[in-house]
């Protein structure tokens, strides 16, 4: 259960990215947040792993008010949220495999277990055969799938994805959406910020989804 209550986010300089947004997301839901760029989609997602903090209002994840969480507790929250970033944030100085190992390495998982889980995640997104490659040699779609593998390797209960299909052609975008549907079907809460209408339609045709729209920082249900 994720509960946004009257959330307002004002950035330094006065720009108001979110204006009193209230939204609750049930466990296992597949939620699309649509809207133009600059509507506040990214900001909304960033509040969950406390990359940004609310200016007023509250964000509660599984009964925990993350908007007032102390800094030392944030890393543990983030381990339970799979994040797919708009700019992917892959590390190009190491292999595909090591990119997926990173979330496990920073939490001190035994290297043997970690390797097993990393390979399982790579297998899930169909990149197992490319584990030794450098991410720079992957296609755009493959890079996005690698980002997804890294996000799910900790087996999070929540996945948030910021524009996961932007810059991908329709086939690749379809594959990515199918992956999110698969996670949704095993009970993971998935929140996707996108302006890709095709992706939203494709998901709606295969499973139960919910759409919300943001417009200039305000929620349109």
């Amino acid at each position: 259960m994720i509960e946004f209550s009257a959330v307002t986010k004002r950035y330094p300089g006065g720009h108001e990215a979110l204006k009193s947004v209230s939204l609750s997301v049930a466990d296992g839901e597949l939620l699309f947040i649509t809207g133009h760029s600059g509507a506040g989609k990214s900001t909304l997602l960033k509040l969950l792993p406390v990359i940004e903090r609310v200016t007023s209002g509250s964000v509660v994840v599984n009964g925990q008010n993350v908007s007032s969480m102390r800094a030392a507790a944030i890393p543990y929250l983030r381990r339970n949220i799979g994040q797919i970033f708009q700019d992917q944030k892959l590390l190009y100085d190491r292999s595909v495999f090591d990119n997926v190992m990173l979330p496990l390495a920073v939490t001190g998982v035994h290297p043997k277990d970690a390797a097993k889980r990393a390979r399982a995640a790579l297998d899930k997104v169909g990149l197992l055969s490319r584990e030794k490659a450098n991410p720079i040699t992957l296609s755009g779609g493959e890079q996005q799938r690698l980002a997804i593998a890294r996000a799910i390797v900790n087996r999070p209960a929540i996945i948030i994805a910021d524009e996961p299909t932007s810059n991908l052609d329709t086939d690749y975008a379809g594959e990515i959406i199918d992956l999110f549907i698969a996670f949704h079907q095993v009970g993971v809460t998935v929140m996707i910020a996108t302006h890709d209408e095709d992706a939203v339609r494709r998901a709606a045709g295969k499973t139960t989804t919910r759409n919300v729209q943001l417009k200039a920082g305000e929620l349109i249900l």
Partner: protein
Amino acid sequence: MTAWLRLHWMAFGSTLAKLASTPFATVLNVLVIGVALALPAGAYSLLFNLQNAARNVSSDPEFSVFLALEVQKSEIAELERRLKDLAGIAKVEFRSRESALAEFRKHPSMGDVLAALDRNPLPDAFVVRLADNNGDVLDRMAEQVRGWAHVEHVQVDSAWVRRVAAAVGVGRVAVLLLAGLLSFALLAVTFNTIRLQILTQREEIEVAKLLGATNGTIKRPFYYYGALLGLLGGGAALGIVFGAFWVLNRSVAEFAQLYASDFRLDRLPPADLASILAFAAALGLAGAWLSVSRHLQSFEPR
């Protein structure tokens, strides 16, 4: 708990890998630190040896009485009686000029010098030992004997020893000052090295933070790096000092032989060596801590 230990172990491993992956830079850094620390460490070792040598000499509260060259046998006997009558005397030993000459002849380099002289230049002498090791009594007595007839020169070894002790005290302060100053060099080297590392790993650190790495996990490899760099630098410093002593000892041995001494420069005791290494590692750690707290706070992922 095991995860925490594993994180430490992994941080240590990645630190070693980091040191090994840039061997040239690592060696240069270690040498800079080593040279900076070798100065105070070497000076301290010299003081340690000087103090040891002084302690060996000072163990006997005695003074030597050198007589005039033209002194008669009867006068020598008279002097010996007077010396033995002094209060608090443990032993009076007579060393004739003939025995002193014989002793000198044993030294190969001295033989030629003595052969060139037409008469024995050495005086008769008494070595007077006191019962108690009291510097003031020794000085007073030596002063008294100095005034006697037929006495050419009175030498109190303990005066020299006390002068050395005072000099060692001054030297120790100087070494501390030097160590304090050069510690800044070590601090600066680790600070700067780690600053560069943080800048080059900026992306990795940001991603790791986003993926749930604690600040401790991110900082830990840098702490290990600083401490290890300091430790290696300390090791290099000791290596430089050992090397210098090894070279010096060859000439010191020749020099000491002229004084019929087997004096040589000794290494510091293990406890002192361990303290130097620990001090270097602690400085490296401090440099890392300064650098990390200065540079890592500045970026939070967005």
